[in-house]
């Protein structure tokens, strides 16, 4: 097993600064969804991780903790993740993305 980043939606959506989306070295990995925040009553959306693309560097953890000062990202063993986003289940819309969360171990295992 290996570590991947996991963003706490509640903590992120309270700030929603999008900084981590600009600092992850991997493309199309930290995504942004309006609905995931606004559905929970927040003004803006949240960042989330396409865990199948995450290389586990934890650079985003530093960015959220030190630059955004929001501590929303933690590294978690991939098989211990709650439901998570994977590339196959992410849809792009005009200015946002929509993710159907699933058990990444089942999706990636397939």
């Amino acid at each position, binding site marked *: 097993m290996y570590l991947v980043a996991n963003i706490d939606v509640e903590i992120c959506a309270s700030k929603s600064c999008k900084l981590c989306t600009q600092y992850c070295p991997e493309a*199309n990995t930290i995504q942004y969804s309006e609905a995931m925040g606004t559905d929970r009553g927040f003004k803006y959306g949240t960042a989330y991780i396409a865990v199948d*693309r995450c290389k*586990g560097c934890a*650079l985003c953890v530093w960015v959220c903790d030190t630059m955004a000062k929001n501590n929303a990202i933690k590294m978690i063993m991939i098989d211990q993740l709650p439901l998570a986003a994977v590339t196959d289940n992410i849809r792009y819309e005009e200015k946002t993305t929509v993710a159907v969360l699933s058990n990444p171990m089942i999706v990636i295992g397939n």
Partner: protein
Amino acid sequence: MSLDYVKFSGGFEKFMPKEYRDMVEHGPFGKKISVSQMGSFKEILEEHPMCAGCAMTLFIRLAIIAFPNPEDTITVGTAGCGRLAISQAAIPFVYGNYGDQNGVASGLSRGLRLRFGDKPKDVVVMAGDGGTADIGFQQVLHSWFRKERFTTIMLDNEVYGNTGGQESGMTNRGAVLKMAPLGKKFEKMDMLQMAKVAGCAYVATVVPNNPRRVESVIKKAVLIAREVGSTYIQAYTSCNIEYAIPTDKVMEDAKTVENDRYQFTEYVSDEAKQYLTERYGYKDYLPKAAAPAAAIPNKT
């Protein structure tokens, strides 16, 4: 080399992988995309084998997003880590032998001008510090002296990263590396000064811990290279493997190095300033309102 190449061929849409469909429908081609929209559109850089947490990877990701017309851009690379990612983007990539990237790019940019006339086709070289300042040095300098109209970007990780840690001309004096165990005995080469002496119209240093600045520098360099002359960007893109930087500290290192020896610098020739102002509406180079009419435009 136009918006046509990112369309589906008739009847093939349903057979294409999701990543390709997303790119055609929600990629940056033909749109004005900026780093502030990252995470909300499909990037044209795909998965690649560069190391986890590599700052060079981040820089390449930002650079590709910043290309003013990705659908009309060709990248040129050479041996070294960067090509492992640059080659995995949905824009044409030309790979030359180690060090001949600026020679290849010279021919390519001239050929494109013959073929397409004034329609801008941007050529962008991205190569390591070894590829640019050591092995490719002669071709790099000559392309600048000839004022070849393309952009050269040095991915400066201050080491030969791809081959396990030999010193390069851009390594700092005293640095001890796996294959330079006694420490480097000479100073880091001043490629910025050389670029200016050789007549580059735009020369800038940048560090990827400031994505908006990376975006602005890349855009200016590519636009100036369309008509005015050679442009050069030197980017600090640490190698966390050879310099043993914990991956979660890569941006902290970038900040430290930026403050120490990689402060943002930008040189824009007068001709390039005029061109950016008149052609692309840049306001930074207009004379300051309070300054007397004869003052030389300030560089900001």
